[in-house]
């Protein structure tokens, strides 16, 4: 899974039937300290995340194991809103 920050939303009226009602968010990947890294992705939100929330994103086939995403054509899902990251070097 990767750490990220919600930076935007995507509106798409015409989409795969199984994505109707899904919330699509633009996520910027970040390092554990919250600094932006290169790269954006669009992920399905399953935990009611909001703009600027730090989130946990699962990618690849595993994304369809997230709640409510079985048999949907997705490859990235937001499955957690991060309270804190503790680092020790």
């Amino acid at each position, binding site marked *: 899974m990767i750490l990220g920050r*919600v*930076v*935007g*939303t*995507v*509106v*798409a*009226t*015409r*989409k*795969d039937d*199984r*994505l109707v009602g899904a919330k*699509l968010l*633009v996520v910027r990947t970040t390092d554990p300290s919250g600094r932006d890294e290169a790269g*954006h*992705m*669009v*992920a*399905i939100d399953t935990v009611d995340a909001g*703009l*600027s929330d730090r989130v946990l994103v699962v*990618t*690849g*086939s595993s*994304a*369809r194991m997230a709640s409510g995403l079985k*048999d*949907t*054509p*997705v*490859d*990235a899902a937001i499955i957690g809103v991060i309270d804190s990251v503790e680092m020790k070097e």
Partner: protein
Amino acid sequence: MQIGRVVGTVVATQKNAKLEGAKLLLIQPVDPSGAPKGPTVLAIDSVSAGIGDRVLLVQDGKAAIQALGRGVAAVDAAVVGVIDEVEMGA
């Protein structure tokens, strides 16, 4: 998923039987501002997207198979939505 722009269509008369009738699009992945990033990707289209459309691109074999909806097939990318708008916050 990635944001992409449809930059072309691909016609291939001779192709894997599971792909018969499937529409193939050439997609340029872009960042939220629309700037191109990385190489173009060939994806099957399940939402009738057209050239110039901004789209949602999934790049995962099983996700693409779900989008194609014909059982196991040799696909690894699919267009699953046409983007109306991307709103960026902070």
